[in-house]
């Protein structure tokens, strides 16, 4: 593609249409601006409603009490603790796996192998999360005849792994080759070079990927429906049994006929949104500064 390949339209050659063309240009500027505003309105509206309704629903019970029958009082402590536990375990599973795979694809694998693994990871990223839930259900719930939090964590980990892997890979690509060569030339072994030079230098970026994966996992609902199931009981540490999570709590309470429970859904949504957005803003703001082109 060169500039010469682009046909020059007739009207450009005529000077007479200049005024009209300027008008078109200005109107298109306004049209595109309008579209940008339209694109942002839902975000603003959503943040506003979740904040207004959510803050109104915040109280000590919401974060300290388990749910109660019939929509009289109660809270979301089961969901809050459940989310923290399941996301933490999912992170413990996903980080080593995602990191290893990313390192392998970026630093060690042959071109062909890397391509195959990268393709698989890209496809995994695109798989609807509910199918991950169905998949995990077939081998971690069905055989044990028990919905369990471990299955929920594994489902979240399956969603996190390709994200961490691809970020790791992309970040390692940006680490200058000179550093590796210098290290190898000093007689330092490959594994040490990769870990203490490449991964170390790229770590801030890799951490960004991990945190984004954590934020995504924290908001996932669909894969938990048929794995962790949700629970009205406080479950601390027993991954062999059902566990509640904030997204499940919101999904459950949004469809209740009791206004008190709808309010709890808004409160929980506010807490979830706050956590997810804080993580996103922190890491994205940092990477904006880091990579400002």
């Amino acid at each position, binding site marked *: 593609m060169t500039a010469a390949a682009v046909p020059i339209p007739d009207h*450009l050659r005529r000077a007479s249409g200049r005024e009209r063309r300027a008008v078109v240009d200005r109107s298109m*500027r306004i049209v*595109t601006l309008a579209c940008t505003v339209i694109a942002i309105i839902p975000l603003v509206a959503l943040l506003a409603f979740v904040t207004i309704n959510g803050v109104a629903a915040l109280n000590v019970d919401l974060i300290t009490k388990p749910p109660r029958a019939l929509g009289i009082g109660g809270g979301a402590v089961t969901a809050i603790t459940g989310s923290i536990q399941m996301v933490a375990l999912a992170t413990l599973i996903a980080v080593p796996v995602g990191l290893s795979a990313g390192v392998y694809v970026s630093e060690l694998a042959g071109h062909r192998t890397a391509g195959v693994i990268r393709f698989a990871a890209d*496809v*995994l990223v695109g798989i609807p999360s509910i199918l991950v839930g169905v998949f995990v259900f077939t081998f971690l719930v069905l055989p044990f005849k028990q919905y369990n939090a471990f299955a929920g964590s594994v489902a979240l980990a399956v969603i996190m792994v390709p994200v961490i892997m691809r970020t790791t890979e992309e970040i390692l690509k940006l680490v200058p080759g000179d550093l590796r060569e210098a290290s190898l030339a000093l007689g330092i072994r490959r594994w040490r070079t990769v870990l203490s030079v490449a991964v170390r230098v790229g770590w801030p970026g890799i951490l960004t990927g991990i945190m984004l994966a954590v*934020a995504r996992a924290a908001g996932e609902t669909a894969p938990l429906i048929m794995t962790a199931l949700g629970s009205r009981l406080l479950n601390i540490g027993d991954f062999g049994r059902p566990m509640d999570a904030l997204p499940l709590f919101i999904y459950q309470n949004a469809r209740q006929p009791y206004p008190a429970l709808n309010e709890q859904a808004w409160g929980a949504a506010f807490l979830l949104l706050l956590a997810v957005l804080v993580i996103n803003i922190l890491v994205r703001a940092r990477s904006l500064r880091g990579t400002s082109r």
Partner: protein
Amino acid sequence: MTVLLDPRRLQSRRLSRLPDRAFVGGTGAVGAGIVALLVLILVLLATNSALTWQTFGLSFVTGTVWDPVAAVYGALPFIAGTIFSSAIAIVIAAPIGLLTAIFLAEYASRRIAVPLTFIIELLAAIPSVVIGLWGVFVLGPFLKVTVESFMVDAFGWIPIFRGPAFGIGLFAAGVILAIMILPTIVTISREILVAVPPAQREAMYGLGATRWEVISHVVVPIARSGIIGAIILGLGRALGETLAVTMVIGNGQDIPRSLFDQAQTLSSKIATSFNESEVGLQTSSLIALGLILLVITIVINVVARVFVGHATAAEAGLR
């Protein structure tokens, strides 16, 4: 202190090959595990839905009835709901997304473009269930009294605009999906527009072209395949999106005939029915819906990647 003759060092030299091999082998095994995972998902969904395929064969895909009483299962209403809701989303989000990307890449100054892009990326990070909650209590009722009632009044005589509209149904689901895929379309399109080499534009400016002429005649045509890829990636996300859609689409059982009918997508059908389904043919048929969805999204994603080229980590993180 002659380092070279230090026996410990010599020994460690020889042994140090072992950790290297273990390192490559270990990480390589994990890498292979990623591929195995994908294969395993396909295989487990296929084997666990085998009963359905044996019972109905390919007519499961074209069957229009989902009737647990008669034990007859067909996927077409849900395939239709998936395609229609995604189509509405694309019709809304593609033009808005592209024009927004053009504004951010071409018209806006960096000072404005960077924070605006950031804000739109944030939209992608909002959990689906929170968007669904907002959809049920705010967007649905709003659409019902504004856009939907207007369209029913004005075009209700056309079958696909037939009312009544309740703010819960195919159209509301399409709008929610449009909001959710907008960030994907905007951010990827913008990156591709920004990547168009400046030399191309400058040649055109040199001819006295206005900015819009440069955009419409040079930049967008060059970026076309990437933009198509971005839209297809958005489509991929719309097809598989579950929770927000489940909460607003109304869980109808039939092929929708009007924009405002209640419908059901492949993923929302699984979400609402999976835990409650009866062991055997019904569960198997729900997993078969999952297999259909899986195949559709894999195809869509592969096609999109071909258009976009190598996906960047940013996109991976964005999803």
